[in-house]
Structures are given as structure tokens and as C-alpha cells.
């Protein structure tokens, strides 16, 4: 007797425990096999780009906090660098070092969240690795609180420098952090990297070839996991990355495990960078004063930084007024998400969640 079967369409989200926010995925299954996947985004559209046209250049910094809310520092950095390029503002050297320090701390925090949630989606009950990751992230957030009083929406950077210098207790806490963190990464890795079940679930799952990755302009750890050595910190060094020594970890095949492993290795590299910054940082002013009614000259500028999730770029057009004429955001989460269908078709339901988790998106940045 022949069975008559037909594909089932399941609506994953917008309310689903592992969609990282309000993301909707219409998936068609043939049994457990995925035959089609159609992402639906826009549930969290807040019009950041349009709002920016109504704000002054300094006020826009607070909008950028809310793009990718687990890495506000790098969002701030990408924006203020664009303004500085637009108006040719010089930034004091101490501020540059502090900016690098903050963005590397933020990279560690963001990668910890990505790793923790990937493990959560692999099904460790209650997310034991997730809790471990959050424990360490708390320490970074505490340090950010010392810097600027906020933990998530930081707004620490300004066009021309930083809000304020780091207090003495920040350096003490940072010293403890530098000492503890490498051991902690080892601990996390010993829990995950050689686990038989993790390997079985992530090896050769959701393979992204280097050709597809480059063609769809995927950036960040996702691109590097596919074996492409591309990192803006090396390719187009900004701030003081020129004077710092670090490696760029890459993966071999571009599967889910490589994406996890590249992130873990990037945490190690970030710790190296932090150590060097603490040694090299000079004393001096941390801000170039800009006029209260700041009006950059007519023109346009685009700069990008290596955010934890990839290349985060801002494109600003100035008409000489106090607010930009146009502000465009090139957000890594959105562009990395475009390869989702290529990764999913042919895999199974259980892989869907893991692959989606390994892309590491934040919906605030996808929908802007």
C-alpha cells in the first residue's frame, strides 16, 4: 500500500522560543526535511534611519544603542567615526585606545551571548552553558556601568571622543578580568568543544561555502568560519588597531561548529588586544570639543567597523544642517540573514534551530 504524503507548512514565529526576537519563518517540511524556508522580517521596524533625520548629530548616538542591543559600543563607534570623517574631527590618542578597549570588551560580551544561545538551542536544559556565559558577561556589563552608568544602552562615545574618562576602579576591575577570563574561556571550551553530542549536532550542519558567503556579502565570524580571512580590523585598520598584534581565526568548512569555534577563538584574540591596550594606553585628553550647534560641511561619508557580528557601516549625507539629510545603516545581522535559505534547504527541523542560532542575529539590527 502506497502512502499519500504531502508537505507541511509550519509558521515558526513571530512568537517562538528560539527566534531571537520577533522573527518569522515560513518553513515547508517533507517529513523532517526542509524543502522551503521563507523569512518574514519587519516586525520590529522602528524607523531608526528616518528618526535620525530629525535628531542632531549627537542625539543620534542614542539611537545607535538600540540597533544591536548586545553590542552598543561598536554601534556607537561606527556612527561617531562616520561623523568624524564627515566633519574632519581629530580624536585624541587616549580616546582611540579606550574606544578599542571598549569595543573588544563588547565583542567578548556579544560572542558569549552567541555561544550561550547556540548551546541553548542545542537543547541543554535551562542552558547550563548559557548561564555560564551570562555570568562572565555580567562582569563586562559591570565595567561598562563604571564607564558610563548604563549597562546595555551605553551611549559612551561622542563625535570627537568619549563622554568621560574611565574611573580608577574600572582599571582595577579590568585587571581582575584580564586575569580570570582566559581560564574561563578554557572552562567553557572544555564543556563544549569536545562534547560528543555537540560535535554530532554541529559538524557538517549548515555548511556555508566561501563562494556563497562572499557572493552574498556575508561578514564577520560567519564569513571567517567559511575560511575567508577578512577582518576590517586588519583590512582597513581604524583607530589604533595598526599598533596591536592579533591573529584572525578562521574555520575550515564553514559549518555550525566552525562558526562557534571562530567566536571562541575571537574571544581569546580580544583578550590579547585588551592586554596590549592596557600596556600601551597613554594619558591625555579624551575628547575634542565640538560646537554645541554642530553643523558638518555639505558632503557625504561612509565608514564601517568590525562589529561582533560583521561589518557595521554608516552612510551619512549632510546638507549643512544640524541633522543629517540621510542616514543609512549597513547592518551585519540583516545581510548575514540573507543566506538563511541556502543553509536550511535540505536539512531537518532540529538543524534549522541550530543553524539559525549560529548566524547570531539581533532583530533590532535586522529590522532597524
Amino acid at each position, binding site marked *: 500500500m502506497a502512502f499519500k504524503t504531502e508537505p507541511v507548512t509550519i509558521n515558526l514565529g513571530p512568537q517562538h522560543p528560539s527566534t531571537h526576537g520577533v522573527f518569522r519563518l515560513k518553513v515547508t517540511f517533507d517529513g*523532517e526535511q526542509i524543502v522551503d524556508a521563507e523569512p518574514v522580517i519587519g516586525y520590529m521596524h522602528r524607523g531608526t534611519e528616518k528618526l535620525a533625520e530629525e535628531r542632531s548629530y549627537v542625539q543620534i548616538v542614542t539611537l545607535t544603542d538600540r540597533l544591536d542591543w548586545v553590542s552598543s559600543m561598536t554601534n556607537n563607534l561606527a556612527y561617531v567615526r562616520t561623523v568624524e570623517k564627515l566633519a574632519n574631527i581629530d580624536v585624541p590618542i587616549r580616546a582611540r585606545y579606550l574606544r578599542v578597549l571598549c569595543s573588544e570588551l563588547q565583542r567578548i560580551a556579544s560572542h558569549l551571548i552567541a555561544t550561550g544561545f547556540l548551546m541553548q538551542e542545542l537543547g*541543554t536544559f*535551562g542552558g547550563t552553558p548559557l*548561564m*555560564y556565559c551570562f555570568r562572565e558577561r555580567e562582569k563586562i556589563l559591570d565595567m561598562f556601568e563604571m564607564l558610563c552608568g548604563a549597562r546595555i544602552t551605553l551611549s559612551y562615545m561622542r563625535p570627537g571622543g568619549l563622554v568621560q574618562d574611565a574611573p580608577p576602579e574600572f582599571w582595577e576591575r579590568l585587571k581582575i578580568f584580564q586575569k580570570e577570563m582566559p581560564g574561563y574561556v578554557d572552562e567553557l571550551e572544555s564543556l563544549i*568543544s569536545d562534547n560528543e553530542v555537540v560535535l554530532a549536532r554541529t559538524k557538517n550542519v549548515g555548511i556555508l561555502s566561501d563562494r556563497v558567503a562572499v557572493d552574498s556579502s556575508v561578514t564577520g565570524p560567519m564569513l571567517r568560519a567559511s575560511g575567508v580571512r577578512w*577582518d576590517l580590523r*586588519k583590512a582597513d585598520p581604524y583607530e589604533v588597531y595598526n599598533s596591536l598584534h592579533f591573529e584572525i581565526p578562521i574555520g575550515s568548512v564553514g559549518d555550525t561548529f566552525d562558526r562557534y569555534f571562530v567566536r571562541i577563538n575571537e574571544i581569546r584574540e580580544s583578550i590579547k588586544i585588551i592586554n596590549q591596550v592596557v600596556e600601551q594606553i597613554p594619558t591625555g585628553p579624551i575628547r575634542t570639543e565640538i560646537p554645541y550647534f554642530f553643523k558638518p560641511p555639505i558632503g557625504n561619508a561612509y565608514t564601517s567597523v568590525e562589529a561582533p557580528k560583521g561589518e557595521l557601516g554608516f552612510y551619512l549625507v549632510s546638507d549643512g544642517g544640524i541633522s543629517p539629510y540621510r542616514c543609512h545603516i549597513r547592518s551585519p545581522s540583516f545581510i548575514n540573514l540573507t543566506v538563511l535559505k541556502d543553509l536550511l534547504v535540505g536539512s531537518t527541523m*532540529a538543524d534549522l534551530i541550530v543553524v539559525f542560532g549560529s548566524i547570531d542575529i539581533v532583530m533590532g539590527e535586522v529590522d532597524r
Partner: protein
Amino acid sequence: MNINNFQNIINSLIPGLPTWLVFITSAILISFIVINAVVITGALTVWLERRLLARIQSRLGPNRWGPFGLFTPVADLIKMIGKEDTVPATADKKIFNLAPIVLLVPVLLVFAVIPMSNNSFLGQLNIGILFIVGVTGFNTLAVFMAAWSSRNKYALFGAMRGVAMLLSYEVPMALSIISIVLTTNFLLNIDGSNLSALSLVGIVQAQKIPFFILQPLGALIFVTAASAEMSRAPFDMIESESELGAGYHTEYSGIKFAIFQLTEFLAPVATAAIISVMFAGGIKGLSFIPGSVILVVKIFVIVLIFIWIRATWPRLRVDQIMNFAWKFLLPLSVINIFSQAIILQIFYSSDSIITINELWTIAFINWILAGISIFLLAKLFGHKGRDKNIPIPSKLANMEFTSE
């Protein structure tokens, strides 16, 4: 706790009752006590599991209500009962309402045959093991009833996976039970005991040394298959909360959901009870401590191990779970049965008796055998581990960094 004691008490309180009435009254009384004790144990397990998971995850866990948060399950239950009991409009209402009961009752029935003392009444049921295998088989049906009747795609996905998994894992579980029964039969025959090798009291009686020492392979297979049977991590396919929302009980709420939760937390207790009777010597242990206390301690030690496993292991994919059952556990259990039969026959036929010393020798042989067979099967079917080679950079957009 024995039914004869109850009958005596009732007879002395109200003399002159017919025997059948006394029997039924005492049976109802004893099952009332057992069921309540089991449900309270379940509630305590909820608390224990949440506290222990929290400690493993470096959190505090529930600690507000009562000493150490002991009353948290009560608060949970009050909340659950207070919630609206919704039934989806498209659901098949009769089956939808019946499913939680079909799931809960077998778990409670298991406790009927667990020998809490030497002269336990139902523990001497001469087909106790078959009773347990038969009764626990019901959970497959209940899961499917719940999912199919609630007309939910997520629930159906969960149940389809779950049923396939539950059916597969019953095979190695039953096969590992056979090797236990085989050994019990040998040892009881030698003792000249008139107990059935299929009764749990008989199995406890036969354990001169605990069976998990005598038959490590059988114990391992049984524990693995049993944790799949109660669908706990790393085999929590039916629920897989990160993929399917809540799996088969997605549409349930209120008191029905509470029953599902209760069953979920009772299942480890029931399984631990079976394991402690079959493999850890049940009520045997130190002679100056009452047998029931020893049994409870053993049950909770095994529950702790289950919680530990749950806290640290990710979930396997459904095809990997099936592969594991058919390619790994099934060959292992076949090896186990044949090796046990051969070894026991060799030791028995030499002088028609198996002494304690000979049992230790058998245990030693079995440990070596278990190690070798697991190693070989893992070599054959296992994952090869991650390669530690340095990856080669792709030629696309590769930056030639000067090494500093």
C-alpha cells in the same frame, strides 16, 4: 507496609466484616497512601530538580516560599489549578481530556509492584517485570493521543518523533531485562527458592552482589533506554522546547498541563525505583537500616544522576537517536544476553553451584567484556571527533597579512 497488617487492623476495629470487604477496604487504603506518597515525592522532586539545576548553573533557584523554597511546588500547583482549562475548538475533546490520565496512571501503577519490604504483597506478583514493561508501554499511546487530538502541527511533530523513539528504545530495554531474568533464574534455582524469576522480589533476592556490578553492560543499556523512555535529556525529543515550543502538550493548560508536568517529574522517580530494584539491590544493603529507607536513598541517588545528566547534555537529533538505538544499543544488548548465558552456563555446569567468589569473577569478566564491546562499537559507529588541523584560508578575498 503490608496488606496483612491493614487487614488485621480493620478486623480488630470492626469485627465480623466479610473477608472480601476487609480485603477491598485495606487495598483502597494502601493504594491511597502509596499514591499520595508518590505524588508528594513527585512534588519534592520538582523542587530538588530546580534547586540542583540552579546550583549546577551557578544560580540560586527557587528560594522564596518556605524553607529553602520547599513550598514552591505548592505555589506552582495553586497557580496551575487557578488557570483556565482551555480546549482548542478543533480538538477531539474526549481523547484530548483522556490523554493526561493515560499518561499519569501507568507511572503510578509502576509503584504498585516495587517491593518496599521483603513480604511486599504485589512485589511478589510472579510476572512483575512483565507488568512493568507492559504498563510503561502506555506512555507511547498517551503521547500520541495528546498530540493527535490537539490538532497542532508542533504537537504532531513532537509526537511523531517521540513515538518512533519510544518504540525503538523499548527493544534494548526489554532485551536488557531478559539478561537480568536469566541471571536471576540461575541464582534462584541454585538457592532452591520458590520465587519466580520474573517477580521483583525474586530479583532482589537473587542479588548477592548488585546486578549493576555483575552486569555493567545490562545496567548501562537499561539506564540509557529508560532515560529515552521517559524522554529526558539528551533524549527529550518529544518536547524539544527550543524547537517545538512544548512538543506534544503545546495545547494543554491548567490542571491538565499540571498532570503532564507531574508525570514528567514522576517518571524519573519511577524509573529510578525500577533501576534500584533491578540493578542496585533494592531493599538490600546495611542490615541495621530498614529496607524501605535504603530503597528511597537509592532512588534519590539515581534521580540525582538523572538531573546531572539533564543539566549538562545537549539534545541529539532524531535520526541520531534512532541510529543510537538500532546500531549501538541493540547489538550491545544482544552481546549482553549471549555472553551472560554462556558465562553462567560454564560456571554452573562445572559443579552445579555459583558461589560468591565465582560471581565476583563473572563480574570481572563482564566489566572487561563491556569495555571491549563498547569500545569496538564506538570505533565502528562513533563520531570521529573534531579535526585539529589548521584551516587553510580561502583564496577569495584573502588578505595577505604580513606577519608582525
